Structure formats: C-alpha cells, structure tokens
C-alpha cells in the first residue's frame, strides 16, 4: 500500500499526521510511504528523520498523492486538494463533517473513501484510535500551562521571607478527557482544584485526582458517555452554582462540550466581572463557541483585569507530542483496518463504519448517524 | 497425694500460660505448618504409650499398648516430617538484607 502524508496548510496547524516512528513501522510492514517536503518540520520532525525511516520525500501535493492508496492528514483537505486525490484512495483526517458539506461532496465525487477521525466511536476497543482523547489530553495540559503563565500570581503556596503566597484556586468546568488532564496538571503545579460537570459519574473521577467536586442539582448524561444539553431549569441551577463558586477563582479552565452542538454557555459576563483582576479564564471550548460569554476565539482579552483566553487548536501548540499521539492513533486504525496489504473499507465494521463519511462515490455522513 | 497432684496442676497452669504467650501473631501462611508442628508435639503421648506397652501387664495391655505406640509414633514421625516439608517454602531469598 502506498501511503501519503501531506503537509498541513491551515493556519496555526503545526502537527503532522504520521510521525517517523509510525512510518518506520509501516515500512517494516512492507508499505510505501511518501511524505511531503517539510510536512513534519513544525512538529520538530525534520525530513531527514522520515528519510531515515525509509520514506521518500516529494515536494508537491500532486507528487505525494499520485498513486497513493491512503492519504493521511491532520486537518480536512481543501476542496482543491480533495479534488486532486486519486479515485478509490482512502483519506484519513479530521473532517469537521457537520460543517464541510461541499468538501464531502467533492470527496464523494472524486470516489474517495474518507474516514473522519472525529467520528471514532468512544468504545473501549477503539480507544487506541481515539484522536479526540489523545488531542484533548494535550489540550487540557497546555490550557493549564497557558493560564498559569498568564496569571498575575503563582500557582503553588509558598511561604517565604517576603510573605506567604497563597495557593491559586483553579476551577475546571467540564471534566471530560481535557478537563481531567487539566485537573491533574493544575494539581501538579500546586493549585487547589475544584471541578464541575453535569455527568454524575464524573464526581468520583474528579475526586480520584485529588480535586473537589462542585455540586449542582443538575444531571445530563447523554448517550455513549457524552453529556447532553441541559433543560432551562437545570441550566439555571448550573449557572447559579458556577456563579457562586467562580468569584473566588484565580484560574478557570472551561472544557465543557456536547458533541455536534455549540459549547454550552456556562460563564456569563457578570461572572467574569465578579472575579478578581489578575485571574485568568482559558476557554478550551472557544472553537465551538466557547463556554464563556466574553471569549473571542483565537484572542486574549482583558475584561476588567480578568484575562479571557480563547485558544484555537491548543493541541497543535505542543506539536511534537501531539503528532506522536495522532500518528499512533492512525497507526492503530491501520492495524485494525489493513488486511492483506490493503485497507478494507468495511462499512459493517463497528469502528470503520461510523467513521466513513464518503464511500463508493456517495456521501454517507448524515445517513449513518 | 493431693499435693503431688497440685504440683502437677501448678506446672500445667504455667505451661498453659506459656503456650498462650508463645503464639503471638502468626501470618496466615504459617497457620497450617504451626498447627502441624504443634500436633507433632502433642504426640508426646508416645511416652505414655511406651509405658503402657512395656509394662507387661498381660496381653490386653500389651496389645493396647502396641496400638498406642503405633498411633502415637505415626503422629510424631508423620507430624514432624510433614511440617518440615511444608516449611521448605520459607527459605530466605538471596538478595534480602
């Protein structure tokens, strides 16, 4: 099988779909790998490393994709790129399928079998291919570092000759994969950590990381371990609980999300204003609209002394490890899907089926959900 | 006569207390070997059995005595041997400090 790795062109994207270690493994499995020139440079994988692993380097998209059986990418391809893919090839990348109607049409038209990585089922078996988890891990970690670095104060308690610095209070909203990692990171740095989520199972998980759980009388457990949207009553309860708690916080990491929906609004402007100057809100949900009313995606604002950061593509700011994990996820997907030297796009497969958004010239997304 | 008995009672009492104090805290793994080892000790009846068997008070006594010796001796020899076998697993590791 000929596998192509494209260079990312989207703004802020520093990751690469396959790391040299994975390439190495694929070559050992008798695949061919072609990597676009400089594809890994921003993730600190120079071309040399790919060459050492046995990949060949090609300068242009066309040169890379020519004759490729499988194309690996991080971000969705542009329509142009999509149109250039060889018919019958398999494309593996993020796809933002709910917002990419024309891209899907283009792929379908080109006869490409496209697997959207964000649609990987959240089952135990598929965990090793779960790009959402791996990238959220990095995002949760980096969100805390970012917030800590921007705060007016230190995180840990320090008793010094120049007075005692009290520990920072960190509050994590939404304790999914990113939120839990944020809890762990903030605890490592010495903050007093509390967290909130609407799924009741999360409480024990939060406590298992040594943080306290903020209670609200609201529960919203949806399907597949995900949350669902809150009813208006419950939303009121949640907002009241957060408002009461957030006043006193120095660092807020907001990660609440509902798959396929805009992020729930959980921090109002009033709440932001109730906080002390110098505190920081890192809204990891900025990409899907933000948990905080004051968030502007991609920007860092000061609202009455409170720094509100709406980072985009946080995982990409730790490009090396993010790519390493991304690449390992794809590697597991290939281990699962490749038989007899070719990728089997079996629509009945419980993992591949749901991920496949275009196949056999048709758009499947929307039909299979 | 009663005093001789009482002397024995004193010894019995002291030995009883000693038995209680000797066994303080035993890891579960040692329960069976310890039980077995103690059982071997209780084979001390062999001393009584020998006297009965060797007393030469007629064949009934001798038969009974013979049986008693056999029983007690199985208890003693079997008990010690079996305990020793069980205890083979408590050889120290070489690396221990």
């Amino acid at each position, binding site marked *: 099988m000929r596998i192509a790795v494209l260079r990312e062109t989207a703004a802020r994207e520093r990751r690469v779909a396959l790391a040299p270690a994975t390439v190495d493994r694929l070559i050992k499995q008798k695949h061919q790998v072609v990597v676009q020139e400089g594809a890994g440079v921003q993730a600190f994988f120079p071309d040399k490393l790919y060459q050492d692993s046995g990949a060949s380097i090609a300068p242009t998209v066309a040169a890379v994709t020519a004759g490729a059986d499988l194309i690996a990418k991080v971000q969705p391809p542009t329509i142009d790129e999509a149109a250039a893919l060889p018919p019958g090839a398999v494309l593996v990348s993020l796809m933002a399928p709910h917002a990419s109607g024309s891209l899907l049409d283009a792929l379908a038209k080109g006869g490409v079998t496209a697997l959207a990585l964000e649609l990987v089922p959240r089952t*135990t078996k598929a965990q090793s291919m779960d790009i959402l988890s791996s990238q959220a891990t990095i995002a949760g970690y980096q969100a805390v570092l970012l917030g800590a670095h921007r705060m007016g104060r230190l995180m840990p308690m320090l008793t010094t000759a120049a007075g005692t610095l009290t520990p920072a209070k960190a509050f994590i909203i939404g304790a999914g*994969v990113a939120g839990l990692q944020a809890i762990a990171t903030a605890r490592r740095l010495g903050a007093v950590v509390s967290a909130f989520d609407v799924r009741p199972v999360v409480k024990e998980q939060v406590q298992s990381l040594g943080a306290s759980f903020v209670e609200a009388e609201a529960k919203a457990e949806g399907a597949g371990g995900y949350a669902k949207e809150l009813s208006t009553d419950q939303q009121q309860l949640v907002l009241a609980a957060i408002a009461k708690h957030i006043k006193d916080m120095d660092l807020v990491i907001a990660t609440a999300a509902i798959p396929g929906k805009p992020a729930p609004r959980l921090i109002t402007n009033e709440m932001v204003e109730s906080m002390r100057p110098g505190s920081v809100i890192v809204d990891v949900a900025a990409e899907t609209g933000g948990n905080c009313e004051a968030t502007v995606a991609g920007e860092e604002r000061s609202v009455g002394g409170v720094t509100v950061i709406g980072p985009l593509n946080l995982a990409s700011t730790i490009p090396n490890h993010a790519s390493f994990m991304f690449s390992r996820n794809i590697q597991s997907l290939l281990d699962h899907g490749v038989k007899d030297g070719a990728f089997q796009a079996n629509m009945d497969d419980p993992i591949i089926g749901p991920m496949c958004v275009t196949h056999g010239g048709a758009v499947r997304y929307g039909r299979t959900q | 006569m009663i005093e001789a008995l009482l002397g024995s009672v004193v010894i019995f009492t002291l030995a*009883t207390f000693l038995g209680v104090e000797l*066994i303080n805290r035993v*890891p579960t793994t040692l329960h069976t070997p310890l039980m077995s080892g103690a059982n071997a*000790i209780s084979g001390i009846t062999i001393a009584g059995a020998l006297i009965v068997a060797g*007393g030469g008070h007629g064949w009934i006594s001798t038969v009974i005595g013979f049986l008693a010796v056999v029983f007690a001796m199985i208890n003693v020899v079997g008990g010690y041997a079996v305990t020793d076998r069980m205890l083979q697993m408590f050889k120290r590791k070489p690396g221990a400090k």
Partner: protein
Amino acid sequence: MSHAAVILSYLIASVLFILGLKWLSSPATAVRGNRVSGAGMLIAIVVTLLDQAILSFEVIVAGLVVGSAVGLWMARSVKMTAMPQMVALLNGLGGGASLLVGGGEFLKSELVNENLTLDVSITIQLSMLIGAVTIAGSLIAWAKLQEVMTGRAITFPGQKVLNALLFLAVVVLSAYQISVPESLLWPFYAVVGISLLLGILLVIPIGGADMPVVISLLNSYSGIAAAMTGFVIKNDVLIIAGALVGSSGIILSQIMCKAMNRSLANVLFGAFGATSASTKTAEGLTARQTAADDAAVQLAYAKSVIVVPGYGLAVAQAQHLVREMADLIEKKGGEVKYAIHPVAGRMPGHMNVLLAEANVPYDKLFDMDQINAEFERTDVCLVIGANDVVNPAARTDPGSPIYGMPILNADKAASIIVLKRGMGAGFAGIENELFFNPKTAMLFGDAKGSLQKVVTELKAL
C-alpha cells in the same frame, strides 16, 4: 538412668518444645523451630525407654518401627494441597493414642486389681473422653476435607440438645465409675463409645471451609488429652508439652478465625446455617479470599513483584502506600515493577499522575509492551483496583465488549493478588474470570485500608 537424670532430661525436652513452638510462629525461624521441637521429642522417647520399668521391648520396638514407617510414608506421599487433611489424620491418631493409654491404664488397674487414687481416676477418664472426641472429630474433619463425605454442614433438629445429653451421660458414667471402684467394664465401654459419638456430632455441623479451625481446636484437645495422660502416669514432660499444645492450639484457632473475620463461636456453632469463606458467583465459580498478613508474607518472600494499578487505586487515593509497600519489599530483597496499562484509570496518564504524586521513580514504570513478557517470570502480580485492563476476556471472549483490547498478562504470573472492595465490575461492566483463577487470591476492602494492613504486616515480618 537415675530418676533425677530422667526428670532433668524431661525438663530439657520441655524447654526444646517451648523454643520450638516459639520459633515455629515466625517465617524466619520456623524450620529451626520444628527441628528443635523434634529433638525434644527424641530425647523424651529415649529417656522414657531407658527409664521405665519396661519389661518387653519387642512389642515396643515393633510399634516404633511400624509407626515410624507408616508416618514417614504418609508424610512423603501426601500432596501439598492435601496438607490440612493429613494433619487432621495425624492429630486423630494422637488423640487415639491418648484414648488407648488412658484405657490401657484403666484396664491394667482392673487386671491387677490396683486401687486407683482419685486424681488418677479422674485424669484417666478425662484422657479417654478427650482422646475419643479428638480421634472421632479428626476423622470426620479428614473425611470432609478429603471429600470422602460431603463438605457441607450437616445439621438436624435437636442436635445441640442431643450433644448436651450425650455429654451429660459421659459425665455421669465417669463419675459412677470413679466412685464405684470395683465397677464393671460396661460403663468404661459406654464412656468410650459415647465420647466417640460426641466427637462425630461436634464436627459434622461445621462446613468444610472451616475445617482448618476445627483441626486446630482438636489439636488443642489432643494436647490436653496428652497432659491428662501425664497426670495419670505422673510425668511432667507430658503435662508441659500437652498444656503448651493445649493453650497454643486455642490461640491459633482464634488467630485463624480472626483472619477469616469471624469468632470461634461462630465457626463452631454458627454453622447451623453457615456460609463458607469464599465468594461464589452466579455460575458457581469461586473466588479465593486471602488476608493481609498472608499477602504480606507472599510479597516478602517474592523475588519479583509486578504491581498493576487501576482506577480503584486512584479512587482509594492509596498511591503513597503503594510506594511504601514497594520500598519494604525491596528492602527484603524483592524487585518491584509497575505495569501501566494504556487505558488504566479514567484519563490518559491517570496512573502516571497518581504514581508521580507518590514519587515512584520513572524507571520502575513500564508500559504494556515493555512488561507483558515478564509476567511469566514473576512471582506475584499485585493488582490494585484494576479490572478491565487485566481481564482475560479481552483475549478469549469474542462476545465481550473489550474483545481485542490488549491487556496486561497478569494471569501469567505465578500467583496473583487482587485488591478490590468486592466483586464489583469495572468500567466495561463485565465479569472478570481472572478473579476465579485458582492462582488468584482476592484481598477485599478499600485499597487504602488493605494496603495499610499489608504494609504493617510487611514491617513486622
């Protein structure tokens, strides 16, 4: 041999018994203890042979040879797993010997028309009663363990009343016999018969799993029987050794009960409607339970230990104790590694966060690929609050939701100890056959409490 020398030799034998028992109760000295006590026994036997007015040696030598041969053969041929029933059998024979000695002395007094003093009469009766109960009870215990008869508790209405009546009968008959010296032989036979029956009745209502406690108790009885024999033949070594075994046996029974979290009374009588100590599942599989001190001994003597932490360790927040335990094992010469499954816990790297908090050095952490081959060469795998990540169903059961997920090969270790609160399922909500593996012992309880106990025991070893 002068009488004084005999007494002194007996005293030396007694001291050896004392030291033997003391040393037997600690793993480090147990082997020596058993041998020392054996030396004491040898002295006692030799002295007895030299001392007493022993007339016919042929019978005695025959008895000694036969007994030794049979005993040795039994000890050699028994399987390690059949040890408890073996001890039961040996113990029964010891009780039988006491019965025979008591009976023999009685018959001898009848034959030579000797008038027994009161104390000798009483102790003869006692040694017979206790000896008979011991042999009968021990044989039942043996039968239950050997599965010659059912291991279940056998109860019937009025059982306790019957036992009480039988006991009363023995007492009355004995008293009659003692008070009427020129009595007939039938009360003698009756006492022996009823005592045997009593021994049977006392043990049948106790479940097979509780037999070790019963054997220990019967062992204590046989000690007392020996002591009574000592009163009969006025021999201090019998009294001392018998009393030692009598009291230490009871203490040991209590310790055993405590290890099972039950009282002695509950073991002996509670069984009128009792449960066994092992946990049964729907399919009738049995998970073997263990206690903290036992786990500690296993860990202390293991050359290699792999710890498999899971979500339960995080819930219990017992990370610091794990570290402490590992340090102790290493001080005792064992090697401890941690096997981190990629999805252990509830978030990526959950176990790393936890173990970093306890300052476990990074070079002791191994991920699945690095360590999976090592389980086979590992003495003990200690699974702490992990479940799905060691579930063999992932390898073997295509119907399972985790089928195909690579797991840690905990089941390949020579023995496995699992720390959990109960038989609760993990994240995937499925049963785990590892817990029913014959090599696996479950240490139930909150992981923090269990580890605390293990650590305390490790320090005491």
